[in-house]
């Protein structure tokens, strides 16, 4: 079984990287190349399902991967993973089939499209079977990336770009939140292996932390499943080609949130927060989604919002389930997948045949495409929950659950899920009627015939398969029995009575009456909306949040730029003051807090004791010269003052008995001074007035003064504090003592320079060399050769985006 799963997951993954190469130039026929992979995966998973013993969990240890982080390649086989595996690969087969007919020669890059699809399928299967929480997360993110590529497949369009960006940022953000949850949960449990995770007892963990972990997981699930407040991305992701919408956004990827909820059900469901969080958000989304769907006009938007609503229902369904387990959850998910995938494919066919995306401009298609009409009627009936479709069966059982919850509510008012659901079901039933009637049966408006061409039989077959499934299960619900029994999942599924038979007719009970009244009010609602001719411009944009999101996306660069400006990161004149101020603040602040290190009472005796008279004199002279630098008006005088400081420092070398250094210092000072003066002589006279010609505001001037004094004080205090420590034994002593004996020189400074630490000197010579090279570089300023400038028709590659192009500074 392990081998079968490895092939089922990794074969599509490998194929995803080979298809673009193998399928180059094949055009739409790449589909034939890609088609076998979902078939193989589906077959293998089906086989695994038959091998699997119901009600157990098998962990297939495939390989170790990153043992130090607790991540291994483990597959978890249980009812949940098999169910999702079969849905993903089964619908995958239909989608690949459908895409072959849908993506005709008008599209380009077919090979990439199928590569993305395969990548996506592999990622989905990996998530479903992931037996290590980290592994699951890795595949989870991979679904996000591959769906990004798929949504943006038509990346030339603006919708393709904004839609895919929105989907990626939303799902990656919530994914990162989930990652934090994954990390925290694994750290509490001490392992990321699903066996340990599922056996975790969170009641031992600190309550606040456990609640935080639950919220992090929930945000991850809500993001992927487009729950309020993340519901905005899904409708925008509909810019993808229809096969993608049908596969990702109805049948599989968006159900990952539901999957995750089911996966961690056993871990969290006993917490008090579970029901209010999951059911609260889920049923709110159900209500909001169905209302949005009812008020939308774009075909795909209608379906997208109903999907959002149904996902909310599923998540809420787990929220209100008893902590011993959920009942018949897979049945509802399967039914939804069947009719929603089908409806998406129908919309794709309509778009393909008429090039119309808005329900207001459609009509009378029954005459032109009766088979499609039949498919739509059945699928829409299932969405509305009309008897003889699987949707009806689901709805009855869901209502049973809702009534049960109303009687013993936990954590949230018992009526809320029921009332929200009834309202939502009414809206969805009403829009189902609209969907069928307005597209197929009302008189044909102008414009439909204009582009119409019959899409051919092939493209009808995949939705037909789903419709047949809907009908068979709807008429013979007894079939659910063995299916659900086989997929029983420990920790998730409530104990089932093997003898229980699913029936179509439960007699006249509360559920049936509710169901019928929902349908009745839906008809009233439909005619009510008809009376005003569905005359509204969709949903107010601000409710969708996507506008806000896009605004945010566009405002971010500008805002960030302003922030950078505010932080003065774009003002070169402020760079050094800011650095200096940081040093002054942190060190100065620290010194103030620890003033005792300075022993201020000893300060004056210390200086009197340690200063030679020459010292004091030189120090005064240096201070005087430094003031000269600041207050002199011309550059030349400033340079001379600066040089004076340098010359005066040589006296220190003399005092400390380093004549060579003194000599060097004098030479350098002299050379520098002469060179700079010569250089300044060549400057235009107007600049010669020096920095006084720069207008510097008073504020900046005084701030700079303060910072400069601060730097001086901090360095002074630090030096003073260091000097206070007299008892230190310096390694310099070693040099003084051993210079003659070991280094054969009588001047320790010299032996340090050329022998003890000769390597430093070698490299300082290299520094001089580099400085010379650098000046040469500046002197022989680089000129692009004429041929380089004229290279090709568009000028030199790689250069030429300078001052006029990007305004990095004001």
């Amino acid at each position, binding site marked *: 079984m392990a081998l079968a799963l490895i092939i089922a997951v990794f074969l599509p993954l490998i194929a995803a990287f080979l298809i673009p190469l193998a399928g180059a130039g094949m055009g739409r026929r790449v589909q034939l190349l890609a088609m076998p992979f979902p078939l193989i995966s589906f077959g293998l998973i089906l086989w695994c399902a038959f091998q699997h013993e119901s009600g157990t969990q098998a962990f297939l240890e495939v390989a170790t991967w990153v043992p*130090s982080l607790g991540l291994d390649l483990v597959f978890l086989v249980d009812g949940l993973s098999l169910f999702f595996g079969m849905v993903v690969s089964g619908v995958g087969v239909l989608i690949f089939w459908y895409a072959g007919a849908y993506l005709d020669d008008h599209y380009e*890059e077919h090979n990439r499209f199928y590569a993305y699809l395969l990548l996506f399928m592999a990622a989905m299967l990996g998530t479903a079977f992931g037996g290590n929480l980290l592994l699951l997360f890795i595949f989870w993110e*991979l679904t996000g*990336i591959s769906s990004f590529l798929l949504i943006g497949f038509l990346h*030339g369009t603006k919708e*393709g770009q904004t839609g895919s960006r929105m989907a990626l*940022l939303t799902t990656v953000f919530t994914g*990162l939140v989930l990652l*934090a949850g994954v*990390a*925290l949960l694994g750290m509490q449990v001490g392992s990321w292996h699903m066996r340990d995770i599922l056996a975790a007892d969170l009641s031992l963990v600190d309550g606040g932390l456990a609640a935080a972990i639950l919220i992090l997981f929930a945000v991850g699930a809500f993001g992927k499943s487009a729950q309020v407040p993340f519901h905005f991305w899904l409708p925008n992701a509909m810019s993808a080609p229809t096969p993608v919408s049908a596969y990702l956004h109805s049948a599989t990827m968006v159900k990952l949130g539901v999957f995750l909820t089911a996966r961690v059900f056993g871990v969290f469901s006993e917490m008090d927060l579970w029901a209010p969080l999951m059911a609260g958000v889920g049923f709110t989304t159900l209500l909001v989604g169905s209302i949005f769907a009812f008020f939308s006009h774009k075909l795909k938007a209608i379906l997208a919002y109903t999907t959002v609503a149904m996902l909310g229902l599923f998540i809420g369904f787990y929220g209100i389930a008893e902590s011993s387990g959920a009942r018949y959850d897979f049945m509802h998910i399967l039914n939804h997948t069947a009719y929603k995938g089908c409806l998406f494919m129908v919309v794709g066919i309509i778009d393909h045949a008429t090039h119309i995306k808005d329900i207001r401009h459609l009509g009378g298609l029954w005459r032109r495409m009766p088979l499609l009409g039949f498919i739509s009627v059945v699928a829409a009936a299932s969405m509305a929950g009309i008897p003889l479709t699987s949707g009806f069966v689901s709805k009855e059982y869901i209502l049973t659950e809702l009534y049960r919850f109303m009687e013993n509510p936990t954590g949230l008012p018992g009526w809320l899920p029921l009332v929200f659901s009834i309202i939502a079901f009414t809206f969805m039933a009403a829009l189902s009627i609209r969907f069928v009637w307005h597209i197929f049966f009302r008189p044909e408006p102008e414009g439909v015939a204009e582009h119409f061409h019959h899409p051919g039989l092939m493209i009808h077959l995949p939705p037909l398969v789903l419709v047949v499934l809907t009908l068979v299960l709807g008429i013979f619900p007894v079939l659910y029995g063995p299916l659900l029994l086989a997929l029983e999942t420990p920790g998730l599924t409530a104990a089932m009575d093997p003898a229980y038979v699913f029936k179509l007719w439960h007699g006249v009970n509360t559920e049936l009456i509710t169901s019928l009244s929902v349908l009745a009010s839906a008809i009233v609602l439909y005619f009510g909306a008809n009376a005003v001719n569905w005359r509204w411009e969709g949903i107010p944009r601000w409710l969708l949040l996507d506008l806000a999101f896009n605004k945010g996306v566009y405002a*971010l*660069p*500008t*805002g*960030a730029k302003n*922030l950078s400006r505010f*932080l*003065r*990161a774009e003002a070169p004149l402020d*760079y*050094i003051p*800011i*650095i200096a101020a*940081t040093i002054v603040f*942190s*060190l100065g602040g*620290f010194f103030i807090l620890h003033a005792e*290190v300075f022993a201020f009472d000893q300060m004056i005796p210390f200086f009197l004791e340690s200063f030679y008279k020459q010292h004091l004199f030189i120090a005064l002279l240096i201070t005087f010269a430094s003031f000269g630098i600041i207050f002199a008006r011309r550059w030349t005088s400033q340079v001379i003052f600066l040089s004076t400081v340098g010359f005066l420092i040589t006296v220190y070398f003399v005092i400390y008995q380093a004549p060579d250094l003194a000599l060097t210092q004098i030479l350098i000072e002299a050379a520098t001074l002469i060179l700079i003066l010569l250089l300044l002589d060549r400057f235009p006279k107007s600049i010669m007035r020096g920095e006084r010609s720069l207008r510097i505001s008073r504020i900046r001037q005084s701030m700079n003064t303060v910072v400069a004094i601060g730097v001086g004080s901090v360095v002074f205090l630090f*030096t003073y*504090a260091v000097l206070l420590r007299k008892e*230190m034994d310096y*390694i310099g002593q*070693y040099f003084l003592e051993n210079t003659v004996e070991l280094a054969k020189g009588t001047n320790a400074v010299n032996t340090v320079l050329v*022998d*003890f*630490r*000769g390597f*430093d000197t070698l*490299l*300082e010579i*290299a*520094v001089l060399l*580099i*400085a010379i090279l*650098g000046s040469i*570089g*500046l002197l022989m*300023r*680089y000129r*692009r050769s004429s041929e380089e400038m004229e290279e090709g028709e*568009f000028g030199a*590659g*790689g*250069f030429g*985006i*300078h*001052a006029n*192009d*990007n305004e990095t500074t004001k």
Partner: protein
Amino acid sequence: MQVIFPLLIPLLTAILGLLAIRSSAGRRLFFAASAGGQLLFSLWLLASVFSSGSQVMYLGGWSAPYGIVLVADPIAAIMVVLVCLTAFSCILYGFQETSIRNEHPLRLPLIQFLVLGLNLSFLTGDLFNLFVAFEVMLLASYALLTLEADDWDVRQAFPYLAINLFGSAFLIALCAFAYGLFGTLNFAHIAVRAQEMSGEPLLVAFGMLAMLVFGIKAGLFPLYYWLPNAYPIMPIALAALFGGMLTKVGVYVLLRLFGTILPHDMDLLYVVLAWLSAATMFFGVLGAASRPYIRGILSFHILSQVGFMMLAITFMTPFAFAAAILYMAHNIIVKSGLFLVGGAVMVLNRTDKLENTGNLWVRTPVLGVGFLLLALSLAGIPPLSGFWGKYMIIVAGFTAGEYVLVAIAIVTGLLTLFSMLKIWMGSFWQSKESVPVVTSDRRWIPMTVIVGGLTVISLIIGLLPEFFIQMAMTAAEGLLDKDAYIRLVLGDLP
């Protein structure tokens, strides 16, 4: 003995190249061969450090702590390999970017000096020698920055020069304070003396000053302002080398400082550094989002990721250090790779201003795949190389109980993705009739091959992380095990 090669070979190469070689083609061959050889040597050094332990070399035979000592411990060996790898790919890339006739004759020797400075910064075990290494590195970087610059570029380069000189002044002051406080300059010896002083306020002050001084080099908020406008002016091959390596020296020194040199009880410093790192990554990534051209985005981004690494340092556990090291290694490779993609875009679209780029996903899908893998890796999408380090940092943060800092890191990850998407949308997905794709300029093909090479390395780290995590763990334990370091360098001296 192996320790000296990463210093000797670049030095000799640079000097020989300056003196002996006249023809441009010969120069290219010579320097490329030398860079390749250095890469092999560094791998050899790495292998022997990991198989038979750290190596110490007492220069001039003067025993520590009196002479200068070179230490190749695991972290140093790893960093040297990364330097050689980045330098090698950037040199090869530079050959494509600039035609042989237009190549500045000083560029290659100066790169070798830069490599010398970088390698020495990692290998040295002496504070003043570290200052010298920084001087070599910075002088070479000033020279390279303005080597092929026009007037506008020189103006942009000036803040870089000014601030780094300012920083160097503080670095030399730091050396003086160190000598005054500890009476020695040798890292191991300082570590011994600092341990004795543990708890004294002056030691904390020293640590604070060191943190800020090296923070300037590493790009710590608010000391990083010099960087984002300086790097974009360089030719891409150099920008990639600078962007990949230079700030990481600062990060490395901080690792060394907090791990090996200072006592492990400087809680005040860890808190300050943690919050400054958080600010760095957050403001850095926002700065990146504000830039409308590829090199600008990537340059600003460097800071954000440096913030990640420094944040990890503050948790002060072997696991967190390993996270920082792994993240740093990944980041060096991926960041250089992304710069090189930017160069290929500039060749193909004749600009890297996102408004005027486009059509590349259709025309050059291989480059697109390379960019996508590198960019997603940078954003920390699993299972690419950036994920593991980021995940480890998150775990380390949770272990330390720093939930707010982790939250900032997570938001930063999202914004990173945002800014990478900006490039992806602008250059690859955007389709604009008016934007040319000059595939006839064949330079983009070898450029893509070099990008591909770096992408493959990043993929290997991503798909087989265990090996690299183990290496990083070894290096981290080496950094934090002060006693072992002291024994290694000083022998059984007190």
